[in-house]
């Protein structure tokens, strides 16, 4: 009996065991949720969502595009800042340090207001999609810079010396030694960061970018179905983030050459 509930390090967990225990967790969650709902007398009715199919789909796509565009731009920003932080030119070094420190030390929502209403207005960035992508990329870029900087630091000097010893040029060392090791170390974390970008993009609803969260807010404002809207919103985000987390875990295994 006990065997059904306890992890055995030596054996692979059987599917029945997994299913049983996952089921138990679900029952608990549903029970807690159900009790809370009945305590405040709420009943659910999701049928209205069908009427908003097109808008929800558009919002969903907007979130996907926003996140993809931000992923690409933030990668560029992140790589440049990581290189800048290691630069011998003090101006770039301090610029990148201050940038990373400021972004990581302040909340995204404050940055959104600051950039959109001050910088955005001053420079005439009217398009909310473009403004959103820039804001999000500047934010996520600082985190990506830290991921890359950490991996760069973790590349062993012995690997660089070996590269020298076999006769690689600086370019070849970068191409055949530093880059592959860097990619192996950063890819899992970068994939995880992509999940963060998707979630963080929801805050762009504050400047009325019509992405998924903003769409659901508008729908809930007209239908007064607050709970249903936000529950469904959560499920949609999970549809995006769960597969990414799964991929991130798999990459970690695939690129782990250390053991």
């Amino acid at each position, binding site marked *: 009996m006990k065997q059904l509930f306890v992890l055995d390090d030596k054996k692979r967990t059987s599917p029945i065991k997994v299913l049983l225990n996952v089921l138990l967790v679900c029952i608990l969650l549903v029970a807690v949720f159900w009790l809370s709902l009945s305590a405040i007398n709420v009943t659910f009715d999701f049928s209205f969502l069908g009427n908003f199919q097109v808008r929800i789909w558009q919002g969903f796509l907007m979130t996907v595009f926003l996140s993809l565009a931000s992923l690409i731009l933030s990668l560029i920003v992140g790589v440049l800042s990581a290189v800048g932080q290691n630069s011998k030119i003090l101006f770039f070094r301090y610029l990148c340090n201050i940038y990373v420190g400021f972004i990581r030390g302040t909340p995204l929502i404050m940055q959104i207001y600051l950039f959109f209403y001050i910088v955005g207005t001053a420079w005439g960035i009217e398009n909310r999609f473009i403004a959103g992508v820039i804001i999000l990329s500047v934010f996520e870029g600082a985190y990506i810079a830290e991921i890359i900087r950490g991996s760069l630091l973790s590349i*062993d000097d*012995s*690997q660089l*010396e*070996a*590269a*020298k*010893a*076999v*006769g*690689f*040029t600086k370019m*070849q060392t970068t191409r*055949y*030694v530093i880059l*592959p*090791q860097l990619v*192996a170390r950063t890819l899992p974390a970068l994939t995880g960061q992509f999940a963060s970008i998707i979630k963080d993009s929801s805050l762009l609803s504050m400047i009325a970018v019509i992405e998924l969260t903003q769409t659901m807010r508008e729908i809930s404002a007209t239908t007064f179905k607050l709970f249903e809207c936000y529950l469904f919103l959560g499920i949609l985000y999970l549809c995006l983030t769960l597969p990414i987390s799964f991929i991130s875990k798999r990459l970690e295994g695939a690129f782990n*050459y*250390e*053991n």
Partner: protein
Amino acid sequence: MKIEFYGLVKQFDDDRVILKSIDFCDDIHTLAIIGPSGGGKSTLLRIIGGLILPTAGEIYVDGEKVSADENELQKYRKNIGYVFQQGGLFRHMTAIENITVPLIKVHGYSKEQAEERAGELLGRFGLLEEGHKRPAALSGGQQQRVAIARAIAAKPKMLLLDEPTSALDPEYTTEVLDIIHELKQQGIDFIIVTHEMGFARHACDKVAFLCDGQLMEYGESSRLFNQPETEQFRTFLGKLLEWNV
């Protein structure tokens, strides 16, 4: 191979003087550099290998001056095989790739030629089964054998070995030393920094005793071990023998 140093000095950034003006000139085939830890052995080998630059002094290999220019040095390093104490293999590459990638990218081999050469060396060193494993999946002894295979793959003028066995368990030490000894019989010139006195004495023609940044003694290995001249060398040998069986 003729090696010459004149007034070789190495001082690190923190003002530690590792090598205090070393002069040397001889034709060598197999040389063991021995001496107490911190005496400058590895630093000297790194300078000979063109991995670091001396603070002062000049080196000539076969009459040619070793340049301080990075581009020249990179060409110079192509002709030298280097084996590190440990961790010298590229961790993200398999044993075969560790050998073939430098052959292809640095020495201009075709993929087929490089693979043939890698297979030949791995076979000779008893590593055919291990070719597709990454370093982390190999034992310390296997890693060092792959490292030696990589170092000699492009038929370098000279092989430099920096304490190739000191990170190994005793049972692996022999298998690595056997291979190096085999290389000697094939006529490959090498310089080895080692703590294996038996190997230095019996497998190397010449021995250099480096202590405190100075070349204290140098000569035929048979003579040096039988008639140590300096107090430092006698003390060093005495310490090594203290716990001998």
